[in-house]
């Protein structure tokens, strides 16, 4: 392989910045979100209710995927909205899209919950501990399984936990791969690859993009 000196790290960083700027989509709902936050700051519960109605499914699923227990997931989700109410003043529009912001808070709160309840290892040691057979089942489903129609729940059970998280953030959060990589602390290449794998598995279960 002929080694050619190309761009320095600084140049790459510049490139990435330029890229991030162009990648940012114009989110029409961002304005609505900011308005709701402003109302919350003024003590108007309606602002919180609007956010709740728009994002309860999105947030609850993020929390549930990590905690894996309905009751606890409900507790953490409620706590999430209460915290959002209390800290409405801390939201900054320039910090990126609000969906990514919400997802990051929900994830952190869920991981904190597990940490406090002594179940940290369950998350940190990987998905294998949560669902030992999922990974193998997932791989088999891509390689061997014939196309079959399954319910959404059954189809999602064929995905790895991380794949499910990525699919959720992509579909419900409409986040970019870069944003997802930031939230999940994973390299972007891995995120795109896992998403592609997940889509392939779902396609085999009868779901198309």
């Amino acid at each position, binding site marked *: 392989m002929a080694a050619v000196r190309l761009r320095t790290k600084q140049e790459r960083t510049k490139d990435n910045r330029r890229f991030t700027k162009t990648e940012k989509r114009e989110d029409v709902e961002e304005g609505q979100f900011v308005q709701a936050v402003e109302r919350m700051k003024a003590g108007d519960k309606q602002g919180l209710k609007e956010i709740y109605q728009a994002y309860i499914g999105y947030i*609850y699923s993020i929390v549930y995927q990590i905690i894996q227990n309905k009751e606890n997931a409900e507790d953490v989700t409620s706590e999430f909205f209460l915290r959002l109410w209390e800290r409405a003043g801390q939201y900054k529009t320039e910090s990126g899209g609000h969906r990514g912001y919400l997802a990051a808070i929900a994830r952190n709160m869920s991981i904190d919950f597990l940490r406090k309840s002594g179940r940290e290892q369950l998350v940190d040691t990987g998905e294998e501990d949560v669902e030992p057979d999922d990974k193998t089942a997932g791989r088999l489903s891509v390689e061997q399984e014939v196309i079959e129609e399954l319910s959404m729940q059954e189809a999602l059970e064929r995905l790895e936990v991380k794949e499910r998280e990525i699919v959720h953030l992509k579909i419900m959060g409409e986040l970019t791969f870069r944003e997802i990589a930031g939230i999940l602390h994973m390299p972007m290449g891995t995120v795109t*690859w896992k998403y592609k794998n997940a889509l392939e598995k779902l396609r085999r279960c009868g779901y198309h993009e």
Partner: protein
Amino acid sequence: MSKNLENEYKEYIRTETPDMWERIEKSLPEREAVWEEKQEAGDKRAEKSKSRQKNNEVRGRKRTAKFYARIGGSLAAAILVLVVAAPVLKNQLFSGGQSKSNSESSFTMNAADEACEEAVQTAGSTGSMAEVQDTDGVEGFEEAQEAFDEAVKDEPEQEAGAEVNAEEAAESPKEAVSEIGLVSLELTISRIEENEAGEAVYFAESETGESCSFVLAEDAFVEEEILQEGGILQGKRYAVELEKGEEGYRAVAVRKK
């Protein structure tokens, strides 16, 4: 019959999510009370920190004035030494080859000695001044360093890293080039696998049939079009910039071919 993933998924999430609004709404008044208490406490804390900040500002101004006064003093002393010593030393130098009377030369020597002694004394005193000043200078530097660190803290990590690299490059350009040295190749992705760290490992082949594998660097630049297509795909050809690390190649940029 195939179903639309997005619609089905959204519907599934909608049906699976419990309604928690009543529960949240009930907790809001309690939270408001707690929040108000917290805010009051926060206001008090803010007032305290304000007065502390004012005191610090005044103290800082006094310290700066003191610092400049000391610098001025030591500079004046140094200039005085130069003014006194320079003509004497000059005389001594130029009179070196000329014949002079003993008394004259002894006078010159004495004068030079005196000047030297004076210079040494003054230097000694400025030295001690410098010591004092130094300790103050260290304090000042530390303060400045703290302020700078705080200012820099807000900058993105990447940039800080880039600056460090630039410094390293300035120190040893040859090494830096070899460290930064990248390989640019057109590669066809033959397969993608997951490594132990859960990263995607891309196995690829070059035009000449050479094969290699790489992972994506965390700050890798991936072209927008590639992302829109669903990431780096098997069987596709890309222009890849590879960087060799301890654990093999890492792609720092991937573009469409």
